[in-house]
Every structure is written in C-alpha cells, then in structure tokens.
C-alpha cells in the first residue's frame, strides 16, 4: 500500500514538477527518436545553455497523424500560448500541402524559422551497378519496375517525392509506376538497400553519414544548390542535369494567436541558437547543412513551399 501510494504520489509530483519548473514547452509532434524530437531537444538544450531562456525547455512528445495531432491541438486548444514552440520540418509543409492534417492550413500557425537543413540524398549500395544519377534514371526509364526505392516516409511523403521530382524533371511522366516502399526511418531504408531488397535509398544526409563513412553505400546525388562542405566529392543532382533542390529544413512554429512581440522574441532566440557554436557543432555532427531563415521571410518561404508541393502532389496523383 505504502509502495503504491508512494509511487503514485511520486508519479504525480514529478509530473507536476515538470510542468512548473520549465519556462517553456517544445512539442515534438512524434515519438522520441526522430527528427522533430531532435529539433526540440537540441534547440531547447542550446537555448538554455546559451541563456536565451532562463530555465530548461520541456520537451513533450505528441505523436499522432504525422504531426497532425499536435498541429490541431495547437490551433484549437493552445492558440494563445506564449510559452509554446513546436518542431517543424519539410514533412510539416508537405502534409499541410497534401491536406493530411484534417483540413488545417499553413496560415493557422506562425512559422518562426528554420536554422538548418538536412539535404536530400539518393544513395545506392556500395556494390551497386549504378555510379551516377543519370544511369539510375535511364534504368527506370527503360524499365520502371527494375528499380525500387526505400525511404523513411510513407507513400506520398517527402522521401517518396524526391526521386519522383528528379524523374519528372528528366521527362519521365509515368511516375506512378516507380516502386517505393516506406520503411521505419532512413537507417532501415539503408539496411534494405544494402541487403539488396531495394535498389536505391531516398532520404536525408543525416541518415546516411555513418554508412557513408563505413563505405557501405554510395551517394549518387545530393539535392542541394551547391555541394555540401565536408562532403565535397558528392555531386549535386543539379550539376548532373536534374534541377531538383529538396532539403528537409528543421525549424519551429508557434501558435497564431500570440502578439508580434512574442513572435519576435522567439525569432530572436532562434537566431541566437543558429549563431551559437553549439548549434554549428551539432549541425556538423548530424550532417545538417547551414540553412537559416528566421522571422518574417520564413513565413513567405513556407507559403511558397506549400504551393509548390501542392502542385507536384497533384501532378503525381497523390492528391486530387
């Protein structure tokens, strides 16, 4: 009896403690372990370390509907919460564009900024017959069923869109024929590709860094404007003739109903994180490329992105 009482009390007390001892809350709209969780924990930790906030930021994991649950919670229940930030990425805008958040739209929250981007990559196993992106594209053009992609997102997700964007630019219109399997994360996609079950992997740079170092895979292309510092021998898709830039930015949004002062405060804090040595180190360690857009111009970037993905998703038949 004592034990149960004590533990119950302990559980309640500790939960209570968490909610009062923290100044602000960061919602990671997914289970621990993914990119949003990383964003919340890393940005939250650095904000506290560099004293941009007075007390540690509490991370709440609110998994559900690929971020939709957190989105609708913020829009409907916490619209004026000034001490709330939510992790976001390209997946957020992709799903908003595809109307996967139950009718919610991108203008129902305020996007504060992005302070890093995970470049998209197309990779194959080290012993693969493909040594360049055009070889891969040619093989698919000749026989769409001969190449299967593995990626960490579900069908229609950002990882799926990347190879489709490349093929579309290459003039291949029958994109629904392209084989894609969505597995549990980028690392899983790589093991399936190295194991020979799929021929190519589509994902983010951060997911493949370890495998690249160990020599298990070959990266055919990185989907950025320029080559990534530190990975200078990997060609971009652009220089191989496929004009596709697809990066998975990491950033934050806050509720719509807060004042401009609050928005500016968070933007300022985020900018401080972006400028800190800790964040620069974290980016290097995790394969992120610099990508800083904070404040007002980020919102317009997001709007442009949503429009672009909406068009693309219509083209490939993911949405009507």
């Amino acid at each position, binding site marked *: *009896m*004592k*034990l*149960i009482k004590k*533990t*119950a009390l*302990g*559980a309640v007390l*500790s*939960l209570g403690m*968490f909610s009062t001892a*923290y100044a602000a809350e960061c919602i990671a709209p997914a289970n*621990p*372990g993914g990119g949003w*969780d*990383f964003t919340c*924990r*890393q940005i939250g*930790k650095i904000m*506290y370390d560099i004293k941009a906030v007075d007390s*540690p930021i*509490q*991370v709440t*994991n*609110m*998994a*559900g*509907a*690929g971020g*939709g*649950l957190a989105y*609708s919670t913020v829009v409907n229940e916490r619209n004026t919460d000034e001490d709330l930030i939510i992790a976001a990425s390209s997946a957020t805008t992709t799903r908003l564009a595809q109307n996967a958040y139950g009718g919610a739209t991108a203008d129902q929250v305020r996007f504060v900024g992005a302070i890093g981007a995970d470049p998209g990559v197309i990779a194959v196993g080290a012993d693969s017959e493909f040594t360049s992106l055009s070889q891969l594209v040619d093989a698919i053009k000749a026989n769409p069923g001969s190449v*299967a992609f593995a990626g960490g997102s*579900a*069908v*229609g997700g950002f990882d799926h869109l990347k190879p489709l964007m490349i093929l579309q630019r290459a003039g291949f219109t029958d994109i629904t024929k392209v*084989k*894609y*399997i*969505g597995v*549990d*994360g980028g*690392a*899983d996609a*790589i*093991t*399936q590709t*190295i*194991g*020979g079950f*799929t021929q190519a992997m589509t994902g983010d740079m*951060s997911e493949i*860094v*370890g*495998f690249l*170092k*160990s020599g298990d895979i070959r990266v055919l292309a990185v989907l950025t404007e320029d080559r990534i510092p530190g990975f200078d021998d990997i060609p971009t898709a652009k220089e191989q003739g496929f004009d596709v830039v697809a990066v998975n930015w990491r950033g934050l949004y806050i509720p719509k109903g807060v004042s401009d002062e609050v928005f500016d405060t968070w933007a300022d804090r985020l900018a401080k994180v972006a400028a800190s040595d800790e964040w620069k180190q974290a980016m290097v*360690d*995790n394969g992120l490329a610099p990508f800083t857009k904070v404040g007002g111009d980020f919102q317009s970037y997001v709007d442009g992105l949503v429009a672009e993905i909406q068009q693309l998703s219509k083209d490939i038949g*993911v949405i009507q």
Partner: protein
Amino acid sequence: METFTNLALGFSVALTPFTLMLAIIGCFLGTIIGALPGLGPSNGVAILIPITFTLGLDATSALVLMTSVYYGAMYGGRISSILLNIPGDEPALMTTLDGYPMAKQGKAADALVLSGVSSFVGAFLATIGLIILAPLLARVAYLFGPAEYFALYLLAFCTLGGMASNNQAKSAIAACLGLGIAMIGLDNTSGMPRFTYGNLHLMDGVDFLVAIVGLFAIAEVFFFIESHGKNTALGVRLERVTIPFKMIRNSFWTMIRSTFIGFFAGVLPGAGASLGSFMAYMAQKAVAKDPETYGKGNPRGVAAPEAGNNAAAGGALVPMLTLGVPGSGTTAVLLALLMTLNITPGPTLFADRPEVVWGLIASLLIANIVLLIMNVPLVKIFVYVLQVPPWVLLPGVTMISFVGIYSLSGSYFDLLLMVGFGVLGYFLRKLDIPTVPVILGILLGNQMEDSLRRAMVLSDGDWAFLFSTPIAIGLWIAAIGGFVAPMFLRKVLKKPQAITD
C-alpha cells in the same frame, strides 16, 4: 584480447562513485516505472531525458543513468504482471500467464525472485553477446527483407494456437480481433487513412499500451465493481520470502534457451522485446514435457519470457549501435538521447567513439548486477502490495493507469479509448476469450501487414517472392510446423489422460 582492453576502458569511464550512484538511482526509478501500468521503459526513459540536461550530466553519465532506467524498467515490468495480473509494459505481457497463477498459489515471492534471476541471466548473457558479436550480428539485419520479416511474424502468429486458452478457436478469434484493431490508422503503403472516420487521434492507429492497460487494468476494475470486491482476482496469499534455489536450478536451461531466442529477436530491427518474450515462452512450451501445466503456474513459464525479454533488450542495442536502427521503442529513445549528445550511431560508432560504446556496455553490466542485488531484497517490499486491501489497491491502479496513459500523448482521447478497451476486456473475459492474443495482434499486426505489402510492391504482386530465400523458407517451415504440431501433440497427450479419467 582487444575486447578486454576495450572493456577495461569502458569500466574506467563508467565505474566511478558518482556513476555508480547514478546507476543505483536509475535502477530504482526504472524498476518503479516498469512496474506502473502504462509507464513502460520507452516513456520512462523519455520522461527522464530532460533531467539529464538539468543536472548537466556528461555523455557517459547520462548514458549510465538512462540505461539503468531502461534495464530497471525491463526488470520492473514483471512485478505488476506477477502480483496483479496487469503487465507493467508490453514485454512483460507473457509473464502474466504463469506468474500470476504462481502468485495465486502463494508463490508470489518465488515467482518474483525467479523472474529476477531470469531477467539477470537474460540481460547479462545478452550484454556479453553484444560485446562479442555486435559487429558480426549487425550484418544479420541485411539478410532480412520484407519476405523474411513477414515469415517471422507469421511464425509468431502460427504458434499462438497453443497458448493461454485451452480453446484454439478462441485464441484465433482474439488474435483476429487484435489484427483488426491493428488495421486502424494511416496505411503506410498507400498513405491513406483507414477506419479513422476523420479522427486525427486514430491516424497513427491504436497504441498498444492503451490496449494493454485497458484490457488488463481497467477490465480488472470492472470485475471488481461487479463483484462488489468480494470475488476479486486480487488478494493472493502471501508466504515467507526465501530464495527458491531448486526452482532456479530447474529453470537453468530454460533461461539459457530463452536468452538465445530473445537475443536473436532483439537483434532484428522491428521485432523487439515483445516478440522475444513471446517466442521464448512458446518455444519453452513446445519443448516441455508437461505443456499442460503452462498457464497454471509453471515456474519455467515465468523464467522463459523474462529471460527472453531482457535478452531481447540487450539484443536490440546491436542494430541501434551498429546501424542506427532502433530495434525497439526504448532503443529509439536511447537513440534520441545519443543524438542529442551529438553521438550519431552507425557502422563507424565503435571505431569513432569507443569510450561511448564501451562505457555504455560497461554501464549495462553494472546496471545488471545492481538490479540483481537490489531486486532480491526488494521482493519483500513488493509482496506487501498483496496485503493492500483491493478497495485501496484498485483505485490506486486506476489512477496510475490514467496518469500513465495521459502521459503518452497528452490527449483525453486515449483515456476514452483505454476505458473502451476495458469494456472489451470485461466482455472477453466473460466469454473466456484470452486477451493476450489481442495485444499480440495489435503489436505485430501492423508490421506483419507492412512487410507483406512491401514484399508485394517489390515483387509486382508475385506471391512466390515470399518463399524466395532460404531464410524465408526456413521460417515458413517452422511456422507451419508450429501451427500443425500442437494438433497432433494434443492427441498424443490426451490419450493417457483419457485412461486416467
């Protein structure tokens, strides 16, 4: 030799008075978290991550604390399984089958000590396996594609028939119910929501923790209310706490066998501890001379799943450290912790950051020994739970269940769902349909379906693809064998019974 120097490095990092203290605190907290229904190792670790930052711990100390909590929770899950028939977390599910009947027979303390020792054996050997085999085993993940995974999950379902209930059909009904529930949510292969009725809360499907707590804990409360507390299943008899050496000796080979099975299940990304404990239990029952005593309080039925799930916890670290692929929910959280500490697991981690890897391994060994030492005397405290009158205990359990489930996603919807599962559990028990296969259906159904669908995408719908590799064929044979064997065995076993009748 290199392994020993590495290990020495690990211990030099992990074995300081401060980290030892962290290990003890972590083990204690973990045990409690594991024992509370709804709070499993993964949310236990997740809840405690912020504390490591607040305390300003360095990478090694943070890892020691978190792995202690992780292993502590793996140990702790068995406590409520045995004492209350409510699994503390999903890997402890199978321990209810024989642990609770043992407790009802007055052998609660024996069951707790035995399961503690089994947990130790499983976890300890798995850690040794991790040390010796990690680089080698990492390759195993490359051998398992969609077809192989599908056959593996099929194997798990095919052995379901012989479990929990004497009635195979009822087990099958329960498993189908679970599989049906698993279909709810976003379909990974088409990206379309199924059976969600536009409800965002159902997009990711039903969380199996919600189902477990509902089917076990909440259903228990309904039964309690119905009987006005008189005829409750709670309130088992209590005897003196002694160490059951004979029982431990008798279960020795069971533990070793289960450790191997569990470790293997853990190494495969996506299989994890639940499958490990399940397969260990079913394998034990399959080789036992007295399978009819399982489910009625056979000590080996406690030893097998506990050794299995703790070994799987160790095994799950192999793909996490070597590939960065988490093998279970908790390793996913540990992965998050590592990444927050700017350590990216992957094939080069062992070479790049030996102090982290070997410090982690050393802390696993330390946590294990601390837990073994801590758990035997703690049993005395735990069994006092049994002396609590049910009218105090059950409201307490209910409260903890609500808090635990709310902490999962912070939404009231999960609470409603949990109560719904409680009602379902109540009726299932009235109909004498076992609830364990329901959980397994929810737990493994999604992955099984995803594997099948992926296999079909890759093969253009050619079913022969499912039998295209030696591993897949081997698993299919085992699955069919596991499904058919009990039917024949039952005839063999029934005969002598008929004579004695």
